[in-house]
Each structure stands twice: as structure tokens, then as C-alpha cells.
């Protein structure tokens, strides 16, 4: 029965895949997004497929890039900083750039749009997965590394027997986080309509994001509500049918030598394990594995010579760094010349003004979210029963693309006459706040029982409990939540500082608005400049503020 389900799933994926490459020839009517409820399942399936394709792509990228960064001595020094930069670029800046690139690649086909959307989701998922894999590789236990070399595993064997399994838990956890964040960018990428050059048609991809956009354009509450409900189902369903089983399965890759007390469980995984699927899969994959094992033998052992000729090594270094510096300088010169020609550097101070406005919003929302959610999170986290129910709900809230709620919020703003300059704070907070709540719950629930009993037996007052025990204990988790929330808020500003409902459009003064406008008008120079300034803000605040808090948290408040 489970087997039949798997086959049906495969069939559906293939059919959906075929519809990705629909031609649109000039002169014909565009693929209109209907707001018919009967089309919703199809749109949902398309969105889901996009998400999983992006996730697959991100995983492959993480494995390849992470391995290169961890195993190649010279490449590491370049690949890691690049990843660091990529991570700080607001995702939505990639969207118009990707669109232009892929539509030029496939001019008469929706595939270009499709690929652009997948690429944007990919950019929202790949970096943290790659970092996680890279960190697992470089912090691999020495004795396992030694055992792998001692027993003369081939490169291929080492990758699948040691590298991937020992990184699995971190990778799966980051996949889940990435997927959660990805829904937001999926909706944003789908909602974009592209003005196709030459034939004046607006195109958008069939999916939940575009369905939502169409519903908003029509000003239909019912359809907006349907979109929200379907989205919740998608998020919860993905968690239940995909990530829970994956997390439960990956628990066997835990490196600690003792078994964890509460093992993650999944009904779906139990069902799968009892079915004939594992046996069938084994029968198919074993010969393939053997073949690959043999085919990859010529690549050699996972070993390196103990001695290398220092002169050759030095020469290699010189050539490598020469090439890197040359390439970086060329890119920098071209980029600066481009920006100067299309924009002029005198525009940057103005951009910083925009940036400060958005920065102020981020600060206010972090403070608000902290005041609101730290007490709630502590309450929930300190009660094991509450925490058990609340944790998955908050996780769904964090994954839910807040963009879908923007229309309602916009309506409220319009009705009450609240300018978006303030309203945008609420919009940005809708998505970002959950990270703080989620992490504070986790932090509070990990306060050891001894400490809780101590608070009671020492008769600490309420104030003392908070100051001496609770706040220090949840501090590290709070910092993790805060940094994620701030990052999410910056990203959200691009869609939150310029919103519309039916025929109304609201806008706020800020860098997000600037980037959104540049993106809608296809002005690349403005877009890149805005992206650079926003990245700079994110990096500077991380370095000067969050990273310091991290260090304090690590040194003083780690339980």
C-alpha cells in the first residue's frame, strides 16, 4: 500500500514537471492565474514541487561546496568568505537578477521564470546548509578521520561512510530551517509578475504566491483566506510527511556514544519502516552502490601525501592567489565602473539614510518582540506540557510566509489611516518575531530541574528568579533567536515597505522600499547599490552587536 503511494507520488511529480516547460509564444494570451478554487490544488502542488526542487539543489550545492571548502587548502580561504558574503545579501535582491538571467536563457518558455523562482528559493536555503556541512566536516572527530585514512577508504567511500553521515543531523536540521524560511521567498518569487520584453505581456508562475497576488488584485477576502489555509496545510504537511520522518531517521547519525533520552519519533517513518519500501529500495540501490563504488576507485584514496615539495607548493600558492586577486580586482573594477556610470557614488549617502530608517524599524521590532515574547516563551518553556504542544505550533508560525498576511494588515492600516512608516514595523514583525519565541522556549525548557528546584527552595522572589536564573539561562538561546529575527526582518523590509491592496498602494521611507522599487522598475544599478548597503548594515550590526553578545553568552551563560 505504501509502495502504491510512492508510485502515485512519482507519477504526479513527473506530470507536474512536464507542465513547467509550457511555451508562451508572443501574441498569445499569457498563462493567466485563475482565482478559481478548483485550481488551488494544482497551484499548491506546483509550489511544493518548486520548494523540493530548490531543496534538492541546495543539498547538492551544500555537499559539493562544503566538501571543496573543507578539503581543499587553498580553496577554503576563498570559498568561506564568499559564502559569508552571500549569506548577508538580502535574498530578494537576487530575484530580479535571476529573472533577467533565466528569461534571457529561455526566452519563449515559462521555464526561465520557473528556474528563476527555484533559484531564489535556493539562495534562501543553501547558505546555512552549506555552512553547517562545512563546519561538521572541519570539526569531524580526529579519531574517525584517522580511522578512515588508516583503513584506506577511497574518497567516494569516505564521503558516504563518514563525511555525510557525521554531518547528517546538522544538515537535516538546517534543511528544516531552510525550508521554513523558503516558503516566504517562494511566495514572494511567485507573486512577481514579469514584464516580458518585446511583447508587452505580464507573466507569472502558477503557484500559491501568484494565486494570492491575483486574489489581492481582485480584493477578494475569501480567496486570500483560502490561500492562507492552504499554505498552513502545506507547511504542516511538509513537516509531518517529510521532516519529522527525516529527523527521526537521522537520529541514528548522532555522534555521542550514548543513546539520547527522548528520541525523535515519527509515525510516518514507522509506517515506512514496516512496509516493503526499505527492502525494495535496498534491492535497487545496492547494485548501484557497488557499481559506483567500483567506478569511483580510480579517484583514489581519501589520503594525501605526508610530504609535498615546498617549492611546488609555494609556486601553486603564488599562481592561485595571483588568479584570485586578479579576478577579484577585475570584478571590483567592472562593478564600480558600472555603479558609477549608472548611479554615481554621490547617491550612496542618500542610501545610507534609507538604510537608517529601515534599521530603526528593525531595532524597534526586535525590542517589541523581545518585550512581548521573552516572558511568554519563558512561561511556555518552563512548563514541559505547554512546551510540548507549543513548540510545533510556533515552528509552523515561523515557517508560515507572513507575506500572506500582509493584505489583511494593509487593509487595517488603510482603514485606520496608519502610515506604512510605522505599519511596516508590524509587517516585518509578523514573520520575524517567531524566531525569538521559538528559541526562548527552547532555552527555557533546557533550564535544568535542579536550578528550578533551587529557585523554589531558596524562596527567591519573582524579580530575583528572573534576574539571577531565568534571564541568564535563556540568554544564549535568545541571542540565536535575535540574530535570526533581525536577518529575517531585513529581508522582509523589501516586501513590507511597499504594499498594496486592490487599488491602494502604501509606501514607507526605507531601504526595503528603495530596493523593491528598483526591482520593479528593473533598474539594476539601483538594485545592486541598495543590496550592497543593506548587506553592509547586516554585516556591521552582526559584527558589532550580535557577535559580541554571542561571545558573552558562550563565555558566561552557557549551561
Amino acid at each position, binding site marked *: 500500500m505504501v509502495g502504491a503511494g510512492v508510485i502515485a507520488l512519482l507519477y504526479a511529480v513527473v506530470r507536474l514537471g512536464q507542465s513547467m516547460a509550457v511555451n508562451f509564444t508572443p501574441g498569445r494570451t499569457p498563462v493567466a492565474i485563475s482565482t478559481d478554487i478548483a485550481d488551488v490544488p494544482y497551484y499548491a502542488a506546483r509550489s511544493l514541487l518548486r520548494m523540493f526542487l530548490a531543496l534538492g539543489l541546495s543539498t547538492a550545492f551544500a555537499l559539493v561546496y562544503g566538501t571543496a571548502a573543507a578539503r581543499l587548502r587553498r580553496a577554503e580561504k576563498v570559498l568561506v568568505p564568499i559564502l559569508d558574503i552571500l549569506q548577508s545579501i538580502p535574498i530578494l535582491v537576487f530575484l530580479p537578477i535571476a529573472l533577467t538571467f533565466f528569461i534571457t536563457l529561455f526566452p519563449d518558455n515559462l521555464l526561465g521564470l520557473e528556474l528563476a523562482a527555484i533559484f531564489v528559493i535556493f539562495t534562501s536555503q543553501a547558505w546555512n546548509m552549506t555552512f553547517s556541512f562545512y563546519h561538521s566536516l572541519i570539526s569531524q572527530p580526529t579519531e574517525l578521520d584517522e580511522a578512515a585514512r588508516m583503513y584506506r577508504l577511497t574518497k567516494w567511500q569516505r564521503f558516504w561512510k563518514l563525511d555525510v553521515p557525521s554531518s547528517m543531523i546538522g544538515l537535516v536540521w538546517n534543511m528544516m530551517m531552510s525550508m521554513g524560511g523558503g516558503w516566504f521567498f517562494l511566495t514572494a518569487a511567485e507573486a512577481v509578475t514579469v514584464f516580458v520584453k518585446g511583447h508587452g505581456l505580464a507573466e507569472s508562475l502558477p503557484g500559491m504566491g501568484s494565486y494570492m497576488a491575483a486574489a489581492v488584485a481582485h480584493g477578494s477576502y475569501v480567496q486570500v483566506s483560502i490561500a492562507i489555509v492552504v499554505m498552513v496545510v502545506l507547511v504542516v504537511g511538509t513537516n509531518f510527511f517529510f521532516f519529522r520522518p527525516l529527523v527521526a531517521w537521522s537520529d541514528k547519525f548522532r555522534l555521542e556514544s550514548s543513546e539520547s533520552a527522548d528520541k525523535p519519533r515519527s509515525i510516518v517513518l514507522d509506517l515506512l519502516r514496516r512496509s516493503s519500501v526499505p527492502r525494495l529500495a535496498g534491492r535497487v540501490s545496492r547494485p548501484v552502490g557497488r557499481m559506483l563504488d567500483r567506478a569511483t576507485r580510480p579517484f583514489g584514496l581519501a589520503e594525501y601525501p*605526508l610530504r609535498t615539495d615546498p617549492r611546488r607548493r609555494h609556486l601553486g600558492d603564488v599562481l592561485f592567489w595571483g588568479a584570485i586577486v586578479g579576478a577579484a580586482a577585475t570584478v571590483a573594477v567592472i562593478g564600480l565602473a558600472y555603479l558609477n556610470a549608472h548611479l554615481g557614488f554621490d547617491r550612496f549617502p542618500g542610501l545610507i539614510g534609507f538604510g537608517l530608517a529601515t534599521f530603526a524599524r528593525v531595532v524597534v521590532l526586535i525590542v517589541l518582540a523581545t518585550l512581548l515574547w521573552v516572558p511568554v516563551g519563558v512561561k511556555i518553556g518552563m512548563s514541559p506540557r505547554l512546551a510540548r504542544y507549543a513548540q510545533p505550533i510556533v515552528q509552523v508560525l515561523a515557517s508560515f510566509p507572513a507575506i500572506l498576511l500582509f493584505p489583511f494588515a494593509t487593509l487595517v492600516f488603510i482603514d485606520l489611516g496608519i502610515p506604512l512608516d510605522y505599519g511596516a514595523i508590524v509587517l516585518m514583525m509578523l514573520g520575524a518575531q517567531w524566531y525569538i519565541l521559538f528559541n526562548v522556549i527552547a532555552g527555557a525548557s533546557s533550564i535544568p530541574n535542579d536550578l528550578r528546584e533551587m529557585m523554589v527552595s531558596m524562596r527567591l522572589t519573582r524579580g530575583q528568579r528572573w534576574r539571577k536564573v531565568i534571564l541568564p539561562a535563556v540568554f544564549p538561546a535568545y541571542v540565536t533567536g535575535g540574530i535570526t529575527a533581525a536577518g529575517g526582518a531585513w529581508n522582509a523590509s523589501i516586501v513590507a515597505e511597499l504594499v498594496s491592496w486592490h487599488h491602494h498602494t502604501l509606501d514607507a521611507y526605507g531601504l526595503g522600499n528603495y530596493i523593491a522599487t528598483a526591482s520593479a522598475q528593473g533598474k539594476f544599478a539601483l538594485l545592486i547599490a541598495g543590496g550592497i548597503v543593506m548587506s553592509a548594515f547586516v554585516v556591521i550590526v552582526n559584527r558589532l552587536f550580535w557577535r559580541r553578545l554571542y561571545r558573552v553568552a558562550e563565555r558566561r551563560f552557557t549551561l
Partner: protein
Amino acid sequence: MTTHADPDEGTSGDPATIIEVSHVTKSFVSPDGSPLPVLDDISLDLREGEIVALLGRSGSGKSTLLRCIAGLIAPTDGTISYRGQALNGANPGVAMVFQSFALLPWLTVQQNVELGLEALGVEGDERRRRAERAIDAIGLDGFESAYPKELSGGMRQRVGFARALVVEPDALLMDEPFSALDVLTAQNLRAELLRLWREKGFPTKAMLIVTHNIEEAVILADRIFVLGANPGRIRTVIECTFPQPRDRHDDTFQALVDQIYGLMTGRDTRPPAHIWTVATPGEGSPTDTPLPQASVGGMSGLLEILVAHGGREDLPKLAHDLTFEVDDLLPLVDAAQLLGLADVDDADLEITDEGRIFVAADILESKQIFALEARERAPLVRAIYKALETTKDGNLGEGFFLDLLRRGFSEDEARQQLKIAVDWGRYGELFDFDGNTGQFTLDHRHDPVPT
């Protein structure tokens, strides 16, 4: 049983020589760029039919030496060859058993054992058969489908042995294979290994074990290389010729253990290795006389027991009574020696007059005695105290002392040294240390040192 101090016997070209190590030195680079020697001019060989033990305290570089022999790290100087071939990569003729087992937790016992065969390209039925044979031989039958985390430490190490032996290595290398196990389990597994070794048709021709356990070395080995510390060098080679199985209550056995104890606590005649002895006040510098890894409480406890034993006791007996490993006991002995509270004489630990006063004193007095001795005889403590005295406000950052220590220690060791000094300084109320700011402060609350 003969003892001779010349390990440098050239046996190259001898077909019975499996591994030859000649004039190997290994240095790591200290944080300030100068080389930190870990191994100094080591030469040894491993011949067919023998078990060799590398015996040394922590800091003797014995694990580093083993990893050089395994071809996992490159020596700075000198060569290591396997059957006449100089190594440039993992040694093709050996398998290794690890202290921490190094099993892959996501593979079953069977899959873990098959790992080495898989790497050799052995496939299908043959792989399964050979793995099963190794599993049976080491007494693991029935556990084939278990995961390592379901097994006890002893059973896990059996998997480690099965995994190593299944590839039928020419030589078996063992890195403290029994030290993570409890005493009984270790004893049992050792006997099991010796049984396999004596069996006809056992494909492995030699074994090399790294250990800090003197009795273990004497039970197993045909030759024992005793390594001195900082940097590691061969101090003595001891040939144990008396027959297997060896009885630890045997007089010859005990005499040999005593002799090695004496060697491992005594003074190394060759400079610049430093072994702790009663330090002359005011002598030694923080980099050439490191503080032993001992807590004040542990050291006081040892001295109290020593007094209870009448002030003089055989070190092996002390270790046995306390069920201490050498690595647990010797740092305490070192600390007592450094502070002049006890002295080692021919594998006996004897309390000094100061030591008696220290033990008899009440808590405040004993703190004062400790402070006085530490300030005079423990170079790093003295250096910190003196430096703080010369400052106007009695304040100094840890960076100052770390820089000093980095000249002679790796980053981790430097921090470790500072940690011990902080512990000792706090106990003696000589100075205080703020972990948040990394500031040392002279302790002015009251001057405990009679001046």
C-alpha cells in the same frame, strides 16, 4: 631480563623488521612561531613475533609517535619505513585500534568490521564470511546487527579489534586500547588478545601498544620503550623475557614494575628535559619548569594518605591502593615534589619536614605554608606574583602571561598552565583572577605570607 639504554640498534635490511623508525623528531609550531619539540631523536624497530610497548606519561609524545608510525602525520625529521619502504601516507601494512574506539555509530557491528574489507575492494560473500570469522574470534558473535551505542565499552573495543584484525594487518598498532575501559574489562580483553596472539595461524606478525599503564606494559610486552617527557625521547629499553602468561604477583614482575616507576619519576640525566624534583627556591622559569596538572586538594589528599602510611610508601602500592592510574597519581607526586612537600626516592614517595607541618596545620596555616612554597618554588606562580607586585595598582591582564608562556607551550598548554597557576594562586590567596576581564589582581585582603 636485561636493561640497556641504547635503543639505536640498526636492523635495516633484516627481513624480520616490519617497521623501522630512525632518528625521528617531531615539532609543532608554537603560537609565537618557534618550534615546540614533541619527539626528539627517536629510533626503534618492530620485528616479527614481538609485542612492543611504548610507555610514557602524558606529554611524552607517545601517541604522536604512534601516529607517525601509522603514517597519519609526518615527522619533522627522520624516516619511518615499512618493510624497507619509507612512508609517505597511511602505513599500508598496519591496522590501528583507538583509545576511543573510533567506530562509526551509524553502522552495525558487522558493517563496522566490514569497513576495512570494503576499502580493500573485497566484495559479497567473501567479505561477509571474513567479517563473521573476525567477529567470532573476538567473542562478539550474536552482536552482528547491534549498533555501537547499544554496546558496553568493552564490547565496543572488541569491535575495534575485530575491525583491525579482519584486514589481517602485518602489524597491529594500539593507542591506549584499554584505558577507556574499567579494570576488570581491560584485564579480560588483554587476556583475550594474548590468547589470539599465541594461536597458530594468527596473521598479524607484530603488535605495538602505546600505554601509560606500567603493569599493562609488563604484562603484554617483549620489549618496553620507556619515554621521557618534554620533549619525548627514549630513556630506556627494557627487555621482558620472562614467560607468558605473566603473574602480576610474581616477584620478578613486581621488581620490574618498581624499577619502571623509579624511572618514570626520577630525574632524566639528559638536559633539557625537565622532570620535577624538589625545586630550589627562586630557580627555574615558567617555560622550563611547567606546573604539574594537579589540584591543591588532590595533592593535600595524597600527602595526608602518605602520612597515614607512615610518611613513606612504595608508589606502585599507593597507586594500587587508590586505584589510580599512573597519569592520575604522578601529577600529584610532581606537585608535592615541586613544592618541596615530598620527595621521590627509588620508586618510594617520602614526605619532607615541610610536608609534615603542612599536613598537621589547620586550614589557615596550611594555606600560608602553601602560599610561601608556591611563591618561592613554582616558577609561574612566582612570576605572576612578582609581576603584580611591581605594578602600581597590582593589576595585570592574562595576555601578558600568555605571551610569556607561548614561547614554550602550545596555545592549549599555555592556557592550561595559566589555569593551574590561577588555581594555586587563589588557594594561597596570593592573587585573584577575574574570568570575565582576564585580569590578575594582587590579593590585598590580608597578607597571608609571613614576611
